[in-house]
């Protein structure tokens, strides 16, 4: 391994490759900040540039720099505008945005930068140690287990929605799954639920739905209730520093979530999004008393957990790509395409045949994380200036960016009408206190869930896979427990309270 590290250092620390790391991180951060342009689209756009470079090592270094730059940039718009441009940073907005509204945007951004740095660095160390070993673990998971794992993920998200909210969160998850089933299914190419409309043939766009669920209702709420826009310190970012006590409270969170996030990232199909949501949910459940109540209202742990988890998961998602040649996520699938175009075939032989590429990418991950930290910490006050723009200017711009985000993805103005329609629905749902994140997660996971379900059904000619694979059964039982337990706890609490009906 030491030899490999030395090879990697020798390759990565050339002036040209260092320039690639910096360029990748800067481009990724700047574009990732624009809501609507996620890492997938940015990397896809950068592929012609990367192939133009010619050297596969430099190209991969540039593209991976863009990848974590985009994830980091996405967290900035999540915190400042509640407009996550990347699915992996949706969970950051849960607490990052309330912190920004309390006038602590600077602190939230600092924590995000530090947590991302720690997550990425710990992820890179784990990647170095576990890359060969983990490939065998990932192979043990078949489609039946993936299906069960996703069911557990969805029910965990609903179960952690809060008291009295579990059924509502489940309802939103199912709505998301239903929206995800619109369009041409993977099973057969028959269009489903398109009602004859050409525009729905390829389904709803994830970006449009994300904009409609988060950015648009927030902007409309800002319009309706101007008091909401008032930030505690008039938008001035004075408190960049975090206190010693705060650092001590988030350090274990960052440590735990970096490791957990990495292992979730290794599982194909899981990736940064699930890692960040699960990291948030786990930390919220571990936290005690007042700290737990603070989640969702501006908890610093609620920013640190998803940020370290999503960066560690980004690193983790390189494991199946580099060791098995199987992309675990959409983004790594695009990277795989770029690698093949550069005449590098990722797989178990990569470490043997082209150790330079393998180790240089890992070393460049350390460098990339360092560059991101150096680049972002001094820039935070300038980035956070966005909050001092008067709302008469800011709101049209937020609306314009949501429109642009969904337009650029599909280059189709019907998408904008869908955006407005879903935005109105989402605003009404927000009025009635329905959680919207489960809807989006259901939508993202819907396609993968159905594909794995269908594959398991085909392999076992029916529902037998549930009984024949003990791990699947155990995971599904866990999912049912997660959904039922909060309800039972409520029921018991109500009985104890003496049963005075409070109807409405």
């Amino acid at each position, binding site marked *: 391994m030491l030899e490999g590290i030395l090879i990697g250092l020798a390759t990565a620390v050339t002036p040209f490759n260092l320039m690639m790391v910096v360029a990748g991180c800067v481009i990724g951060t700047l574009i990732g900040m624009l809501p609507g342009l996620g890492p997938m689209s940015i990397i896809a*756009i950068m592929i012609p540039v990367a192939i133009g470079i010619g050297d596969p090592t430099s190209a991969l270094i540039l593209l991976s720099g863009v990848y974590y730059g985009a994830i980091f940039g996405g967290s900035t718009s999540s915190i400042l505008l509640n407009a996550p441009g990347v699915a992996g940073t949706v969970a950051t907005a849960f607490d990052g945005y309330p912190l920004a*509204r309390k006038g602590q945007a600077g602190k939230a951004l600092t924590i995000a930068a530090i947590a991302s740095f720690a997550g990425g660095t710990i992820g890179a160390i784990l990647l170095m140690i576990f890359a060969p070993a983990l490939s065998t673990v990932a192979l043990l998971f078949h489609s039946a287990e993936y299906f069960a794992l996703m069911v557990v993920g969805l029910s965990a998200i609903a179960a952690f929605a809060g*008291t*009295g909210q579990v*059924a*509502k969160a*489940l*309802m939103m998850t*199912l*709505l998301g*799954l*239903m929206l995800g*089933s619109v369009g041409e*299914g993977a*099973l*057969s190419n*028959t269009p*489903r*639920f398109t009602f004859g409309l050409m525009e729905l043939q390829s389904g709803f766009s994830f970006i449009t739905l994300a904009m409609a669920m988060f950015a648009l209702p927030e*902007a*409309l709420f800002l*319009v*309706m*209730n101007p*008091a909401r826009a008032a930030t505690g310190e008039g938008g001035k970012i004075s408190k960049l520093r975090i206190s010693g006590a705060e650092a001590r409270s988030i350090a274990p969170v960052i440590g735990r979530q970096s490791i957990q996030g990495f292992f979730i990232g290794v599982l194909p199909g899981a990736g940064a999004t699930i890692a960040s949501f699960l990291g948030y949910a786990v930390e919220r459940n571990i936290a005690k008393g007042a700290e737990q109540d603070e989640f969702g*209202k501006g908890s610093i742990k609620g920013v640190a957990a998803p940020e370290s988890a999503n960066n560690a998961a980004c690193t983790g998602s390189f494991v199946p790509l580099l060791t098995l040649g199987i992309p675990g996520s959409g983004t790594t699938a695009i990277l795989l395409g770029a690698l093949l175009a550069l005449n590098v075939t990722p797989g178990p032989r990569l470490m043997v045949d082209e150790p330079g590429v393998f180790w240089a990418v890992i070393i460049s991950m350390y460098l990339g994380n360092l560059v991101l930290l150096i680049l972002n910490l001094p820039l935070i006050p300038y980035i956070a200036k966005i909050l001092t723009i008067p*709302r*008469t*200017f800011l*709101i*049209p711009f937020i*609306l*314009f960016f949501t*429109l*642009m985000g969904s*337009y*650029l993805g599909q*280059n189709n*103005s*019907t998408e*904008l*009408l869908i955006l*407005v329609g879903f*935005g*109105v629905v989402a605003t*009404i749902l*927000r*009025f*009635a206190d329905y959680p919207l994140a489960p809807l989006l997660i259901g939508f993202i996971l819907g396609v993968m869930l*159905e594909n794995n*379900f*269908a594959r398991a*059904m*085909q392999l076992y000619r*029916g529902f037998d896979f549930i009984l024949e694979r003990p791990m699947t059964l155990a995971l599904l039982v866990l999912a049912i427990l997660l959904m039922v337990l909060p309800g039972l706890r*409520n029921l018991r609490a109500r009985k104890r309270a003496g049963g005075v*009906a*409070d*109807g*409405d």
Partner: protein
Amino acid sequence: MALDRWIALAFIALCCVYGYAAFFTMDAQLPPILRRNPVWPSTFPKILTVLGLIVGFIVLFSRKPNTGAAPKEGAIDLTRLGDYHIGQAIALLVLMVVYALTLRPLGFLGSTVGFLVLGSLILGERRFHILIPVAMLAAGSIWYLVQEVLGIFLRPLPAMFM
């Protein structure tokens, strides 16, 4: 009836439409060879329909937990809906629809400048000497970024000019 129950009712109605499509319309188009498959394109939607109806009825009929929590600061209180600037919000939504419809015929630059200026006007901004240059600068630089740097085609001017 509270708003959240109306939404649950709407969700149940949606499930019925979705379920009708899944149970009664989708299987007819299935080619015979695929009928031997243990899983059909309609299988997953059927499961979703059943689960959706169960959860919908749970939300509709379950008793509201008496949380007694104070309303969140800055949250929207439905009982005083009249106090809010609902008109402005609806005007902005209409403006977004107009933007969607004019983006192609008017071109990106024209419709974007119009959207940003009208949006600020709706919100009460009257400083035109700042407003118009900012809108033009923003529209121009975003067009340059998207079209020239990222290489995504955006028609800048009305269709008749190019």
